[in-house]
């Protein structure tokens, strides 16, 4: 079984403003992009379970032209609030890298 991190050309997280966190999972080619979409490993429900956030808070978008999956959630802590540990939101994607994608 391959990990999502081995299949994607870029997995990243980032602030989308101080109140929203966004994740991009981008692929080099259409076949890999389709394979991951079809595997259903990364879905609205899957993401919600992995990050333990309510499904209704998850915006899940497939962007065919970019060959990318994009997910946005409200920030768990507002950017730079006392409990926030990631000012740029750039290190929240780690669990996605390890996600196992069935053949």
């Amino acid at each position: 079984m391959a990990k999502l991190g081995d299949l994607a050309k870029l997995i990243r997280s980032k602030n989308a403003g101080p109140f929203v966190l966004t994740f991009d999972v981008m692929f080099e080619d259409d076949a890999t992009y389709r394979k991951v979409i079809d595997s259903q490993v990364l879905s609205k429900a899957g993401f919600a379970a992995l990050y333990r956030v309510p499904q209704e808070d998850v915006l899940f978008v497939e962007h065919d032209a970019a060959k990318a999956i994009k997910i946005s959630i409200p920030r768990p802590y507002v950017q730079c609030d006392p409990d926030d540990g990631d000012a740029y939101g750039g290190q929240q994607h780690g669990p996605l890298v390890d996600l196992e994608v069935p053949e």
Partner: protein
Amino acid sequence: MKEVKVLSATGMLGSGFMESSFERGISLKPDVIGCDGGSTDGGPAYLGAGERYFSKEATKRDVRLMMAGRDKLDVPLIIGSCGMAGGDSGVDWMRDIVLEIAREKGYRFRLALIRSEQDKEYLKRRYREGRILPLKPAPPISEEIIDQSAHIVGVMGHEPIVAAIRGGAQIVLCGRATDTSLFAAVPLMKGVDAGPAWHAAKTLECGTAATAQRKRPDSIFAWVRDDHFDVEPMDPESRCTPQSVASHTLYENADPFLITEPDGTIDSTDSRYEALSDRSVRVYGSRFRKADRITIKLEGAVLDGYQTVIIAGIREPFILRQLDSWLAAMQAKFADRVRELFDGKVGPNDYKIRVRVYGRDGVMGKLEPRADELGHEVGLLFTITTARQETSRAIAKTLSHFALHFPIPEWRGLISGLAFPLTPPELDKGPVYRFNLHHIVVPEDPLEMFRTETMEV
């Protein structure tokens, strides 16, 4: 067919660009040169304390080259979100840099400053009128919250910029502005279709972020026409591909297909991306959905106190296996020590102590799915926040000693349970801020929240 050419010097003013790339952009005779100068991305301190992101030296280097290019072509130069947060102090700072360069080089031009810092009385009136609305998710708002804010800016659209250029401005220094509005202003003014104008602006705003392998911050160029736009990086070794341009709508946005601007929404749902050459891309089908009202986003920062921090590591297996209870017992006992220290004048509500555990969930907090795993060592970051720096420092000095020797039942005798990489272990962080607004104002006029001042240089 109408065509407007736009040169984006770099993704963020002060991050640099290659002189050769920018020169190539100038040789293509753009109708406007733009550059974004800020973001909320670094956090609320930039707005709250008027901090700068890049140094004056780095900023001046980029502005000097842009002003030279502008002087050669006599086209508008637009800089957005001056000084990072786009507060009035940032506009003043950028104005002084521009005037210094003008003196050194003998340039003459009409300068417009568009300020976006908000008058609190105005905002309170709009709030009472029900014309301030929450975005999702939004913190609470009240007249007190508006009053307590250190600084509040409104994020301008293209309208004040267009008004300044129509008024003859050749260099426009904006307070907080949407990154896109800087690049959309001149194409919209010249009457090209809003769809390609806005989508091109979105593609240009981060400089070479829309290229396939971004080597370094650099210049990028767009030709905006009625039913499409073309985009090409100015470094001949850099490439835009259909995928790289499409992907840029993802960056720092919640929804890649719909991007909200003050007067409407950029809709790239039906955009088609075609390779024009091996390094330039043509984009068709982008739309701009005009809203029936103007909405101006607010950004506010409030002072949260003054902070002192302590960094420490733990390698002791017995402490690690009871880390949470050890830290909880330590903090509970420490509350008594604080009461003694200040003779009861500093109560439990007057200070905040937080401990972040690196090696467990220090980065992700409650999003961490592996928070039950602990390695053989952890790093701790203590933050102590009160209304005065001296108080925070006094608490931190006692806490570092108290925590260092806080016992565990397994060992009989005095222990030193924290490894300090720095001494003294307490570091004053200074003022800390929070973002306190995620709201929009519905003004009657797109210009009413922004103050424009022009001067002949």
